[in-house]
């Protein structure tokens, strides 16, 4: 089993450790609810070093990189501005999702992808084969050692600036989905204002030495260490998909509920995706329980006439509403906000209401 460089720190904190994507990861430290509330109301810090950065460089021009990535993604790489981050999906030739990724435009001729832990080997192999097949002049590289941290919550900005200062990094003004690479550093140093929680926050890629120091300073400054269980609830409340639950290689972005990513006119895979859009029967949607019942992944979903119309892909109990909620892959006929569906919970069929967009506003800071 794999461990992140912070494994000993998690053990010191007596975290409940469990396997996730081949890694021994902290599920929670003291209480899922406390860690969740810290992120929604103040700030929490997550070790996300199981996720994998992949650098893509070219000696000639950024066109080499764009021409390499655009045929296997659904959103235009050429539209990313310098120091911007883009959420995108890596697709196979049938338009199925190999992984959902973030693409960083770090510098002229230099991009970075962050891919899911569970998919990192698969993605590396896919990219290498793609490069070979198309004779692309790009260099694909995974850093040997690194720590990736996420500081999340409405108080993140000031705390993160102070923490970075202690590591000798002065953070320029960046907003939601923007990034900064400290190119003067000897090892990887990339900071982005991104996250998976719906709150303001930063994801910080550093050397092991600096990452460990930042983690320890974060705890000293009162930022709560938060585990994967709270992270899962935070992302679910925003209806963000998780690979292996809402999306996988059999789902297109449309079926996975992230059809808004697709640049329909310009992408090489657009015709394939258009076909899948027309033929697809189901789509992933968020939902809230009307009264009681806690949905869990795999539970069946019915319509008002007791016809099976889908399956829950993620489910939990929301601390925002104190009710069950989740996401489900359901027939398009019931995909509108306000559609009534019934979840077959352990306590029987319980009524729920479909919601396309999360009702939680969050503290994200966009550039105006």
């Amino acid at each position, binding site marked *: 089993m794999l461990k992140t460089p912070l494994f000993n720190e998690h053990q010191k904190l007596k975290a*409940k450790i469990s396997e996730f994507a081949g890694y021994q990861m902290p*599920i*929670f430290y003291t*209480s*899922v*609810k406390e860690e*969740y509330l810290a992120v929604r109301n103040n700030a929490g810090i997550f070790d996300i070093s199981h996720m994998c950065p992949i650098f893509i460089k070219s000696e000639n021009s950024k066109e080499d990189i764009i021409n390499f990535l655009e045929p296997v993604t659904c959103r235009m790489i050429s539209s990313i501005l310098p120091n911007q981050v883009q959420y995108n999906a890596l697709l196979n030739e049938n338009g199925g999702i190999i992984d959902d990724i973030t693409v960083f435009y770090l510098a002229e001729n230099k991009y970075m992808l962050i891919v899911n832990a569970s998919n990192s080997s698969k993605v590396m192999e896919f990219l290498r084969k793609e490069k070979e097949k198309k004779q692309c002049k790009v260099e694909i590289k995974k850093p040997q050692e690194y720590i990736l941290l996420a500081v999340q919550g409405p108080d993140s900005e000031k705390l993160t600036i102070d923490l970075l200062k202690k590591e000798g990094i002065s953070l320029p003004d960046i907003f939601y989905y923007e990034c900064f690479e400290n190119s003067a550093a000897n090892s990887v140093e990339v900071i982005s204002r991104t996250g998976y929680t719906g709150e303001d926050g930063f994801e910080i890629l550093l050397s092991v030495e600096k990452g460990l120091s930042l983690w320890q300073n974060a705890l000293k400054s009162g930022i709560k260490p938060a585990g994967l*269980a709270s992270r*899962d*609830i935070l992302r679910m409340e925003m209806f963000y998909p998780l690979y292996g639950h809402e999306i996988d290689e059999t789902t297109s972005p449309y079926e996975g509920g992230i059809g808004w990513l697709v640049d329909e006119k310009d992408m090489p895979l657009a015709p394939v995706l258009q076909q899948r859009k027309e033929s697809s029967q189901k789509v992933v949607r968020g939902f809230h329980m009307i009264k*009681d019942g*806690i949905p*869990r992944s795999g539970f069946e979903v019915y319509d008002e006439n007791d016809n099976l119309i889908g399956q829950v892909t993620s489910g*939990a*109990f929301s*601390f925002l509403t104190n009710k069950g909620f989740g996401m489900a892959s359901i027939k398009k006929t019931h995909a509108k906000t306000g559609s009534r569906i019934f979840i077959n919970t*352990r*306590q029987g069929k319980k009524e729920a209401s479909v919601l396309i967009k999360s009702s939680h506003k969050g503290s994200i800071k966009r550039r105006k």
Partner: protein
Amino acid sequence: MAEVKEELKYTKDHEWILQTDNLVKIGISDYAQENLGDIVFVEMPEVGDEISQGDSVATIESVKAVSDVYAPVSGKVIEVNDEIANSPEIINKEPYEGGWICVIDTQNSSAPQELMNSKQYEEYLQTLE
């Protein structure tokens, strides 16, 4: 380290049992509540339910997981802990006191089979670490 109470008996599924003559009070152990995390809902049995050993007598839903409580004995449910319905987190706070789940009348006073005493349970927990 999870707390283990000396006066109780335990199952491998982490239920605890307090037997007084033919009455058996049950709950889940400190280890169980720790591993479940924040408990948000408990489906309780009803007074009068006839239960066979090994049946699911209650369902505990934490934020992330769901877990059955299995009846360590057969008998009739004669009392349930109504406080849990309103504040299920009481199981997290006091698994051995306020967090008891129900009382089963076994209709005989012989000790249930295959239960661990506190020392055996502590040893069992160490094998799980």
